[in-house]
């Protein structure tokens, strides 16, 4: 590997940042999920997502070959200014309602499956390996989210809460498919097989089948190119940095 170009680096950072933030968001349900078994399951899923983020940051920090260097990975994961993040707003917003968190979990993971598929045959071998590992875990994540929705959607009160959450989240979820900087270069060099928005129709079909939702709802919020942070991002980053700020040079 001769090193990542800055464009491909940007492309991978967007993916890493999404994985990092969805993982962080899920961790915030530790201890307060609706019942004990769900608490364990959701925390475990959070941990998997953080693992995916760590793998992607390690590829970026190692300039194509993964490094095992905590400080370099931490610097990417926690050390950047908000304007240097490339996350989608779906994973930046605060979700303090369980229905909201569950719908986001489903929407994100449905897109995540397609996103890993885009790099499953990547010319960047460590990325293809990360994709294979992630998909083994994601099968379980999807089964978890679908299992809960199967039970909860038909219940009148729960179903209403879930559909309200869906209406809030859909415009932001579509933003996951906004073209990210560096994507053209990533496709040209075989790092990814095609632009991610080529999978958008497949994802909307899945959402329709799952929630029986009106197609007009899929109108995206204004595309941000992942350059504008949601107002919830600032406080989220402060919470994420709570420990590292105690001693930024500590080795864990």
């Amino acid at each position, binding site marked *: 590997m001769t090193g990542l170009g800055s464009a491909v680096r940007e492309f991978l950072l967007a993916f890493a940042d999404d994985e990092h933030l969805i993982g962080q968001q899920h961790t915030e349900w530790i201890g307060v999920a609706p*019942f*004990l*078994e*769900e608490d*364990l*399951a959701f925390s*475990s899923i959070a941990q998997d997502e953080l693992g995916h983020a760590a793998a992607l940051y390690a590829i970026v920090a190692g300039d194509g070959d993964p490094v095992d260097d905590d400080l370099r990975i931490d610097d990417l994961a926690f050390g950047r200014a908000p304007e240097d993040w490339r996350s989608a707003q779906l994973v930046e917003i605060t979700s303090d309602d369980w229905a909201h968190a569950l719908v986001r979990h489903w929407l994100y993971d449905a897109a995540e499956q397609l996103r890993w598929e885009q790099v499953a045959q990547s010319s960047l071998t460590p990325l293809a390996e990360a994709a294979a590992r992630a998909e083994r875990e994601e099968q*379980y994540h999807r*089964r*978890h989210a679908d*299992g*809960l929705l*199967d*039970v909860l959607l038909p219940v009148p009160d729960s179903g209403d809460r879930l559909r309200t959450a869906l209406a809030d989240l859909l415009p932001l979820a579509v933003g996951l498919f906004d073209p990210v900087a560096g994507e053209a270069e990533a496709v040209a060099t075989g790092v990814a097989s095609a632009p991610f928005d080529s999978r958008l129709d497949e994802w909307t079909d899945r959402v329709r089948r799952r929630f029986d939702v009106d197609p007009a709802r899929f109108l995206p919020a204004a595309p941000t190119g992942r350059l504008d942070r949601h107002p919830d991002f600032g406080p989220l980053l402060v919470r994420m940095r709570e420990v590292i700020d105690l001693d930024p040079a500590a080795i864990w």
Partner: protein
Amino acid sequence: MRRYEVFLKKDGRDEFRHAGSLDAPDDELALVLARESYARRAEGDRLWLVNREHVILGDPEFIAPNADKPHRHNDGKAIAEHRRNVREDGS
């Protein structure tokens, strides 16, 4: 919610062992949640889940009377000693 009993088995010849119980709304979620509650650190690679309603109970009044029958606890020592004596006398 239903209550399920969880049994786990490691790879190899060990038998299934009771790992604990869990609450879940249906069989599918019970399976999904059992994986994280009992097997997330690779404690086993096969799992039985039993809806507690399907467990047939034997209570102590019915089962325990057999605990006071020492003659059913033949550990083979007497027989082994007898056979050893016969073997040695016969040689």
